[in-house]
């Protein structure tokens, strides 16, 4: 089956997840090999997601852990879990 651009867009997210069947994967790859629009879309979306994943390394605010601990300890000294 040949996929048109709309189909590619619909599968794009699943494709990036590696969550498409072998057949769909081949169709997507065949399509982007000859459609530079979809190729650019796929690449740029992938790149943005790499950047987003980088956010994971963002630092916690300084003192976050100790403030949290303090607040929890205050709670714990009052009462336990209901």
């Amino acid at each position, binding site marked *: 089956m040949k996929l048109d651009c*709309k189909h590619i*867009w*619909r599968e*794009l*997210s*699943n494709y*990036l*997840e590696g*969550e498409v069947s072998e057949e769909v994967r081949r169709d997507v790859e065949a399509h982007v090999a000859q459609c*530079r*629009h979809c190729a*650019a*879309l796929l*690449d*740029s*979306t992938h*790149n*943005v*997601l*790499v*950047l*987003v*994943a*980088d*956010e*994971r390394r*963002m630092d*916690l*605010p300084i003192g*976050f*852990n100790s*403030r*949290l*601990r303090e*607040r*929890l*300890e205050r*709670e*714990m000294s009052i*009462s*336990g*879990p*209901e």
Partner: protein
Amino acid sequence: MADQQGAKKEKEYRLIDSVLAGNREDFHELIAPYRRGVYLTAYDVLQVEADAEDVAQEAFLKAFRALRSFRRESQFSTWLFRIAINEARMKLRKRREVPLETLFPDEDSENSDYTPMMLKDWREIPSEALLNEETRRLVRESIAQLPEKYREVLTLRDVNGKNIAETSEILGISIGNTKVRLLRARLMLRDIFVERTQRKPRQQTPRGVSP
């Protein structure tokens, strides 16, 4: 991998039992692996450091108080993140943000397509531009510009690295809806990001909305 997961779960259950038996301070150990993730989730929903810290603290306190009601049908972290997302949503309600949702079609229906923006040259985002501080700021701002429900799904899956099943459980929506929402979130984010990187420097269009 499966064994590791199992061992982790067992350890968590042991800690939960211990907390419930009166060793309250074991709660610190129980939540230690999730402090960063819960904070990041709150931050991505709220976009303000102080608010995110409040919400994260509040979520951990709630989890502590409600620990007995954790049913052990889902993972502890799933339960915890659900509390955090709900806290963040409540905070957001209070703040009443400008509804950006109107910019984008709103249903999650399986057949409603999102059409990615057609750029004149469709150029890729140049990969050498990707690592500087400016770019990271742009990413953060672009995430901030997503409508709330897309920001949530993207934060859980793409920032926190939760899998689709966990993400759908935390959000309380079906796997199918999670995938559709995620697809849109990713395409929208890319559009917003590309649009921002191509904008002339120092130009200040309010919220980056195209004319």
